[in-house]
């Protein structure tokens, strides 16, 4: 992040903070009986005031052949109910490759659908990775624009005869990353299709809908497996359009105002990396921690 962009971000946050008392609290990714946790490989389908800090990732060998360690944050502020702006960034250590900060990433996201009876919700967003906002060794000379669709479905509407399946939920994400310029230094900048999904089994849901769990720790766990994929679909150099991706089994501990997630990162092929990595994230729900100030939308616009 450059000094000027840091000031711009600080100014925007200060401006937002000046209006925080204007509207009531609004929920995070809740639809009907279902609370969708924040996931690490793909985004959850909700929009809320939240902070992921830190997200720590270790890859023994990334797709470029380097050992990689990342520490990042992501902060989302709701502007009006269902609509939020987020900003993400963080440092990366590569061996070989050195240390630096990646480009600042922002997203505008709108939760346009929730069908409570079906525990189904969906959101659309536009993610932008901003050129020249990282350190010189890790910045891109062009923006990347990524329209995103996120959706989630809980299985709570299944009949009671299938009670054990009702804590299941799936979420999915589909996006396309479009570079802001078609080539750099004579090399094409490809457009990529990205997709992923998660399969979750919510023990909090089991405890409150299916059968009581006596253990206070276990009843807050959500075993999850995430699948993420990406494939260049146009403007790629010959032989570079292989599908890459990861499979990420793990578990989420969901408390009242925060959650902690820990997942393994298993590359699906050698083009995606080698060895099993790990990612962990501490996540705070500001709508629960600061319901009357930082955790509510700036405006009531659109609130039922």
């Amino acid at each position, binding site marked *: 992040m450059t000094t000027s962009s840091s000031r711009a971000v600080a100014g925007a946050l200060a401006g937002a903070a000046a209006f925080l008392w204007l509207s009531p609290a609004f929920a995070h990714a809740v639809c009907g*009986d279902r*609370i969708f946790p924040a996931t690490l490989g793909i985004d959850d389908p909700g929009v809320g005031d939240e902070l992921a800090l830190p997200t720590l990732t270790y890859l023994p060998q990334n797709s470029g052949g380097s050992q990689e360690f990342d520490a990042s944050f992501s902060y989302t502020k709701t502007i009006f109910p269902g609509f939020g702006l987020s900003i993400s960034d963080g*440092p990366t250590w590569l061996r070989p490759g050195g240390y630096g900060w990646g480009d600042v990433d922002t997203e505008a996201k709108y939760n346009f659908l929730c069908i409570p009876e079906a525990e189904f919700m969906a959101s659309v967003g536009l993610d932008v990775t901003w050129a020249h906002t990282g350190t010189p060794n890790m910045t891109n000379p062009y923006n990347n624009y990524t329209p995103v669709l996120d959706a989630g479905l809980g299985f709570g509407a299944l009949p009671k005869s299938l009670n054990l399946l009702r804590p299941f939920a799936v979420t999915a994400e589909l996006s396309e990353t479009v570079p802001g310029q078609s080539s750099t230094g004579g090399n094409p900048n490809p457009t990529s299709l990205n997709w992923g999904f998660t399969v979750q089994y919510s023990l909090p849901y089991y405890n409150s809908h*299916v059968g009581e769990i006596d253990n206070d720790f276990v009843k807050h766990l959500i075993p999850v497996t995430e699948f993420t994929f990406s494939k260049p679909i146009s403007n790629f150099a010959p032989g570079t359009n292989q599908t890459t991706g990861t499979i990420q089994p793990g578990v989420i501990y969901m408390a009242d*105002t925060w959650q902690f997630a820990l997942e393994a990162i298993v590359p699906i092929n050698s083009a995606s990396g080698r060895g099993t990595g790990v990612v962990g994230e*501490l996540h*705070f729900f500001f709508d*629960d921690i*600061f*319901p009357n100030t930082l955790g509510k939308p700036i405006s009531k616009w659109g609130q039922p």
Partner: protein
Amino acid sequence: MMRRSILKIAAALAFALAATAANAHAQLEKATPAVGSTVAPPAEIRLKFSEGVEPRFSGVALSAEGGAAVPLGAPSVDPADNSVLIVKVGKTLAPGVYTVTWHAVSVDTHKTQGSFDFTVKP
């Protein structure tokens, strides 16, 4: 230098947040009769939430197999613990499966809802 400062501020913020006591969405932690249990006819239904709830804006309904509603008293909270929502059951329940459907508004105005079954044994 500035980035290191940001990291230090971020780490301090994370610790501060982790130590913050706050309100949240009221999630059902425990129920009496217990979720999915088989019990003698209960005189009341007690729902223990993760947060304090507002009885004026919260509610509980009870239905028998087939959907027939069972009369319940007005919801109240345990005087010693505002996270426990209590409703009296208006009659002795016949053996069978019953469904409790609840909605709760926590003291910070967040809404949650849910349902579960219990069985009254013969």
